[in-house]
């Protein structure tokens, strides 16, 4: 029984990483994904802030989900999320001022990030505390991983660095378009394509085996 329980918990945690990845599979939360990933570090900070909000609001909502009247649940969720976003924003402003300045209005915009509201509506409001926390953690890590990946690719080609560490040599001419909005759209488009391609190949291999 215990091993069965562990397996299902592992499944809740892992599904956010690949199979139901919030960005690639569900195509949610596009706005911060595209906007803050000019550098890998900004993507990482955004991912951490979103994960914090996701985990803490899942914790609170899964505890009080039976008390919330269903008619006003969306409004309640939004207010709870907005409270934690305010915490995250003030924390960043106090401790990491330069990063907070770079992220600008995209930190408060976590409030309307569809991933968070979507998870509360689709998962947390139907499951208990432990499962909800695992689900939130998995989704948060999956989201952050894509942000760091996208940020690294754009920073590598746009500035020749990753996390400010020089990768490409002196002769590299910065590929300006990668640091601009157009680069974000095109890179993410191809990443989504790559994700689907790998999934199609995996399915074919499973079917032929």
């Amino acid at each position, binding site marked *: 029984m215990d091993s069965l329980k562990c397996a299902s918990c592992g499944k809740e945690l892992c599904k956010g990483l690949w199979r139901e990845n919030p960005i690639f599979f569900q195509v949610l939360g*596009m706005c911060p994904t595209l906007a803050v990933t000019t550098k890998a570090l900004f993507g990482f900070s955004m991912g951490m802030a979103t994960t914090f909000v996701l985990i803490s609001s899942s914790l609170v909502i899964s505890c009080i989900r039976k008390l919330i009247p269903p008619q006003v649940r969306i409004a309640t969720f*939004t207010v709870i999320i*907005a409270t934690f976003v305010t915490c995250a924003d003030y924390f960043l402003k106090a401790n990491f001022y330069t990063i907070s300045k770079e992220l600008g209005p995209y930190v408060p915009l976590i*409030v*309307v990030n*569809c991933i968070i509201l979507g998870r509360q509506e689709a998962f947390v409001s139907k499951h208990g505390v432990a499962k909800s926390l695992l689900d939130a953690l998995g989704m948060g890590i999956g989201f952050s991983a894509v942000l760091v990946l996208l940020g690294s690719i754009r920073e590598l080609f746009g500035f020749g660095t990753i996390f400010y560490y020089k990768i490409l040599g002196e002769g590299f001419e910065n590929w300006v378009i990668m640091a601009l*909005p157009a680069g974000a759209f095109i890179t993410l*488009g191809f990443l989504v*394509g790559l*994700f689907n391609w790998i999934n199609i190949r995996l399915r074919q291999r499973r079917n032929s085996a």
Partner: protein
Amino acid sequence: MINLTLIFIAAAITHNFVLTYFLGICPFIGVSKRIEQAVGMGLATTFVMTLAACVTWVIYHFILIRFGLPFLQYVSFIIVIASLVQIVEMFIRKTSPALYRALGIYLPLITTNCAILGLVLFMVLREYTFLEGVVFGVGAGCGFTLALVIMAGIREELECCDIPKPLQGAGITLIIAGILALSFMGFGGLISR
């Protein structure tokens, strides 16, 4: 007057909300399959954006600043937007059933549209006056509608194209959005600031 025109052009074209600030990407990808749908969604969003700009400006300056409560701004803004959308929905349903049928399904979606909250946050951040805020709201709404309609037009044509399977859906839409963003960069010289 020149200042207001500049704000309008910047919000609608050179600093288009969708293509440079990435605000409102979800409806941009989700509701851009038919031109009529895109027009309906765009008009409803413009309407709510303008209203939201008016109401939040008043609340921010006369309540939050006066009583020293700026830390409540995110919570209060999102409540204002959500209730505004609800009121607009009820009002339109009562007064104009035809318009309600046209816009009805899009209205609830607007609450979670990050373009509205983004607009309000930018307005507060840039310390616009009331009139500037309203013009900014109209401009941003027009820009959103423009981007959405262009995208819908392209996607209607795309249906006849042979797209590689992994890129179908979100992938190709994002790549097209990238190319659109590139072409909108061409407007960049219109205003220098």
